[in-house]
């Protein structure tokens, strides 16, 4: 038997979507916007079919996902060690925190001109920009979490004779995991925003470029198709990373 809560959690959002479709249709029919600037729901549906047939939507999606995976992955494998180091060494914190904060607050989009000059248009520029978008927040969050690991765990590690490496692997890393995972979720979302912007300007393919391409071709129906896909995939990425919070050795951080 399906619980009524489960039905509601599907039916209510679907109802909201249906209402939005109705509003969309009404606005389209009213003629407030010129037809060339406002696609009809049915046009968008046909656009989906077209994009699916040519397979372009799929290859653009793979391209963008590949870039985000590379840039984000690179930021995670370098940012977490950097954050651990800064979290443990006060001197490192004092030295690097201001500059990390500076870059954290500098929009990665401001780097686009340099990215194109240095890496041209292709995979490298967006990957570089995504890396910048993710690296600094990951460093800061890891640093803060590491610096705030309760000292009681250090005592436990000492009591049970752990070496420095063991303490890192068995105490410090698991202690910061809940906060790190939360940051990864937020940061991955930012990366998904950045890849679209980066590809719009510094791309020859990918979902961002497809958006720009649809605009240049005055294909507002395709434009909406791309927007829907970008939004849905973003939700999917977050849902995927949310699964990390359900790992038993991480979940404690969300249940206390």
């Amino acid at each position: 038997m399906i619980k009524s809560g489960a039905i509601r959690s599907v039916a209510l959002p679907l109802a909201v979507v249906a209402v939005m479709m109705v509003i969309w249709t009404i606005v389209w029919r009213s003629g407030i916007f010129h037809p060339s600037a406002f696609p009809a729901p049915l046009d968008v549906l046909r656009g989906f079919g077209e994009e699916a047939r040519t397979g372009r939507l799929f290859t653009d999606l793979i391209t963008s996902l590949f870039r985000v995976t590379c840039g984000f992955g690179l930021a995670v494998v370098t940012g977490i060690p950097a954050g651990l180091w800064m979290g443990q060494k006060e001197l490192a914190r004092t030295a690097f925190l201001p500059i990390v904060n500076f870059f954290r607050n500098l929009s990665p989009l401001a780097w686009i001109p340099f990215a194109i000059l240095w890496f041209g248009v292709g995979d490298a520029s967006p990957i570089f920009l995504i890396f910048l978008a993710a690296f600094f927040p990951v460093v800061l969050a890891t640093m803060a979490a590491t610096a705030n690991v309760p000292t009681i765990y250090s005592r436990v590690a000492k009591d049970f004779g752990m070496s420095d490496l063991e303490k890192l692997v068995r105490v410090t890393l698991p202690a910061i995991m809940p906060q790190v995972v939360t940051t990864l979720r937020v940061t991955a979302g930012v990366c998904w925003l950045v890849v679209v912007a980066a590809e719009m300007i510094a791309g020859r393919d990918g979902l961002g470029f497809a958006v720009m391409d649809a605009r240049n071709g005055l294909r507002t129906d395709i434009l909406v198709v791309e927007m829907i896909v970008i939004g849905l995939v973003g939700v999917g990425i977050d849902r995927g990373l949310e699964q990390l919070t359900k790992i038993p050795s991480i979940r404690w951080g969300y249940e206390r």
Partner: protein
Amino acid sequence: MVVSPLQLRHVSHSFGSLEVLHDLSIEVLHGEFVAIVGPSGCGKTTLLNLLSGFNRPTSGLIERKGESRMVHQQDGLLPWQTVSENIELGLRRVKSRQERRQQVRELVCLIRLEGFENSYPHQLSGGMRQRVELARALAGSSDTLLLDEPFSSLDYLTRLRMRQEVARLLQERPRTVVLVTHDIEEAAQLADRVIVLSERPAQIRYELSLATPRPRDPTHPEVVQAIRQILTELDIESDSGEYSTRKR
């Protein structure tokens, strides 16, 4: 003669200009249960940090023999590890995996938490968590237990039960114990010797030994008498009746 596992000689400790401990000399005998009581903020936890080797005293000498383990006020378990994994932390010296598992099983039985082996600390009650910490500290072959107000976060009835539990566990696995507490009743019921500290900077104000073998009931006449003596010494009980105080 057996060497005493813990010895403090003229130990003083200061944080900056604030002297917390002043010229403490304490010798704990092998297998002895010593309770240290004192007003809050008098430096009890500082003393335990010195005894565990986590901090070094400003002056004086501390001699420690063997391995000591601390049971904390609360949240001393690693929250990302299950009950079994936490207890196994105390068995790191045991090489054989098979043997470790066997001992974890025994310890889980000892603290009567069968069925909770794979639970995480946040899924347990406060009393259960403290029992797991006790098991972790008693696992393997450590020599000294340092208890830092281990039951202060529990409600009164649970605290009474935990006292019985500690006395029972120590019968099964004897250890040298130093208990730091502000609970005089707890000290008198559990310890062979109670040391009362003064206000900061802490000095030994009073010392009292109990002859009745452990485990004892909280209402055992010697326990009750000890409580009365300590309270009188702390000027909380009026100095009347048949019990006289004994100045150190």
